[in-house]
């Protein structure tokens, strides 16, 4: 007998710089925060920045993310577990952001995920791989106003995601996702000073549906006689501070990200996580993005993030990089 621990992942942050026009820099930061609630994996694709693509412009991006953890929180207790050793989670995420009309963008993503444990591990369990959740985000900029000292923007975003394949969510820490639909609503406010410094805050509510396990009984602080597991709803907020350099061709930013499930049970002692778990995550990260001045439309980005606090969650370190290409159509 063995125990499966639970995993969690923070997902690719993507900075896309669309066309740079005279005074109007549009850029988009797409943060997909993937939380595994217990055996369930929740993917919230939340564009969290204030900048928009123009109509008939699109930005194509491919991100590669590598997350790993060798400690996780069992309830609130941080521990290791040689049954799963170090768990790796690698994601390739193709995505596209499209400008529909002024101030309205649509973002679509289709992450492909692979998970496995390092050798040696005591569990000898197979990892998992496959397409995770189809994500769609509609972003609308309600306000974009120049001031004496800079520029202020207010953006709302509605997201929807749902599993693309019949992956098993009840297989943590290796499951690809939490296996349930999610609807999210987010508000974003940003201020950018003329000096190039900017600050951004956003908050979101994440409604999650149910995921279907492949068993018709489970225990979550009591018996459940059903294959359906309730994946807890969550709130997320994010604070970002950054600066542009070299005339908006390069920027770096630091980020704090927090997600808190509003219900759920704890991982039990030396036992596997499951999608019903109450997941909490506090995470810090650094993002950098560069737009090639001489190669039209291309940009690169890289990021690093670390989970610093949590509950029922792997203490992930993530490293990611991506290529973006912006074009008109």
């Amino acid at each position, binding site marked *: *007998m*063995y*125990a*499966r621990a639970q995993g969690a992942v923070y997902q690719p942050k993507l900075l896309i710089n669309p066309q740079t026009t005279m005074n109007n820099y549009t850029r988009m930061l797409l943060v997909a925060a993937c939380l595994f609630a217990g055996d369930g994996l929740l993917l919230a694709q939340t564009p969290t920045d204030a900048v928009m693509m123009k109509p008939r412009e699109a930005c194509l991006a491919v991100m590669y993310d590598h997350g790993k953890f060798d400690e996780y929180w069992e309830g609130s207790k941080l521990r290791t*577990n*040689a*049954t799963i*050793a170090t768990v790796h989670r690698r994601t390739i995420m193709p995505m596209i952001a499209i400008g529909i*009309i*002024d*101030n*309205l963008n649509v973002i679509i993503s289709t992450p492909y995920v692979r998970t496995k444990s390092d050798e*040696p*591990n*005591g*569990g*000898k*369990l*197979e*990892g998992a791989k496959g397409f995770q959740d189809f994500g769609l985000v*509609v972003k*609308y900029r*309600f306000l974009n106003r120049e001031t004496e000292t800079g520029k202020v923007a207010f953006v*709302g975003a*509605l997201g*929807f995601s749902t599993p693309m394949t*019949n992956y*098993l969510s*009840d*297989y943590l820490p290796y499951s690809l996702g939490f296996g349930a639909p999610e*609807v999210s*609503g987010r508000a974003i406010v940003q201020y950018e000073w003329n000096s190039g410094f900017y600050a951004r805050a956003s908050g979101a509510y994440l*409604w999650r*549906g*149910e995921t279907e*396990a*492949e*068993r*018709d*009984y*489970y*225990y979550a602080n*009591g*018996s*459940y*006689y*059903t294959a*359906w*597991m*309730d994946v807890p709803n969550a709130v997320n907020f994010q604070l970002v501070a950054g600066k542009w350099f070299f005339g908006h061709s390069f920027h770096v930013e630091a980020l704090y990200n927090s997600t808190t499930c509003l219900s759920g049970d704890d991982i*039990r*002692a*030396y*036992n*596997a996580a499951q999608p019903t778990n109450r997941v909490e995550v506090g995470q810090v990260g650094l993002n950098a993005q560069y737009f090639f001045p001489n190669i039209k439309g291309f940009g690169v980005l890289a990021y690093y993030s670390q989970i610093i606090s949590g509950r029922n969650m792997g203490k992930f370190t993530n490293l990611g990089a991506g290529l973006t290409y912006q074009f008109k159509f």
Partner: protein
Amino acid sequence: MKKRYILSLLGACLTMLFVVSCDRELPVNLNYKHYDFASLDPNGGTWTPVLLSSPEQLDVPEPADVNSAEYQSELADLKAAMSNLTSQQRSAIEYWTNNPAIRWMEIAMELVAKYNLIPGPNPDGTYTLPSPANPAGPPPFPFAHPAYSSRAYAHLTVAQFDGLIAAWHYKFLWERPTPSQVDPSIEPAYGESELPSYPSHGAVIAAASRDVLTAMFPLEKDYLAARAAEHLNSLMWAGEAVQSDIEVGEYIGSEVAKLALARASTDGMSKAQTPKPVSDSIKQSAIDRFGWHWENQEIPQRPVGLAPLYGKVKMWSVPNVELTRPGPPPAIGSAEYQADVELLISHQNNMTEEKRRIANYWQDGLGTYTPPGHWNTIAFDYIVKYKLNPLRTARTLAYMNMAIQDAGISCWDAKYFYHYPRPIQQIPSFKTIAGTPNFPSYTSGHSTFSAAAAEVLTRIFPQEGEIFREWAEEAAISRVYGGIHWSFDSEVGLEQGRDVASYTIAAMESDGAE
């Protein structure tokens, strides 16, 4: 233009809110209600009990006449209890039903799931085992693994069965009418019943279940006392029984629980989890006999497998465990063994959603009610479908759970006699989709449990036998799909389970119920 989009955004918002608000209540209990029994089995008191020598062994006084002042006063109390029921009391009536043995099994299964957690390693790499001498632990006692839980289920259901045989004996000996037969103004919640009221069978079940489960799950004493108190009270709220019916039922329940617990205290379970030197000598015997042995593959390695001497635990229906011991598995390196290595690798490389579903559906691993629990849920469905009365329900569950425990004992005897390695020990870099348990491979516990359960259920519900046997075979193959058993573990395990069940069925044939 802008406005239109804002409006459609708002519309989308509202739609999403609507979708989200459609959250269902997920079922936390088995879905059944009270029902009219298909038969009453007036001769049930003559059936052969398992542990009780005879219902007359119990000191059950003759009930007071229903015209007596004593009874009339109890009846008045009953009517008072039934008036002005709170919504909580109404829920309790609906919950317990007129076949509450199923509810108590449900409680037992929930406790099994709660306690079915394998102790993890200490920081220094050692393992501490749960101890009944220090139930709070850590780790808490018990670790309700399949062997422990099948033993708990068997003792619980046997106590219920013996208690109900005694109750039936006295019910039909004295034939005290039900409260609503005495006073037609009483409307019993579960409908009119022809079953004599004294002793209350519900009270027998409540007391027997509370006492057996309290011994099996000592940390749950208060919880179980509260559940039993609610159940006993609900008998009056439902208009089922007056106080003297309940009191004598409680007495019978407590007495049969004592018998079950006396058996459990001397069945050899306390010696099943051996110290390392004993475990090592068992392993050495296998090496001497067969040239192979099983080793735990966990990190840090567990020094002793799960319950090496569970195969020596007292059986219910099999006189000697060796009567049901199967022949040896294929020798390591033999052609048959090699073919199974290929088969397992092939399943690993060609995993399908169907195989995965089967592996998961029957896994019933850590943190669940175990495979014996799964078979109880199957039994419940057919008990309700065929509207069995409480006595027949208890008989079904008792024989099935005795067969399951005997199958487990027989399986454990084979496991530690043959001490056969698991696939992950033998096949380099082999990976599984189910967790490999901490005991030898041959034979498969799931297979023996399931075949034994399916045979007993087929005996009781012969018209449903085909599906029970199909499920047993699916449970058996699920372990091969999961990557944790060889195919011969499962095939021989099925035969072994059927063999064990033949002893159980022989006992059923002569107990007077058929």
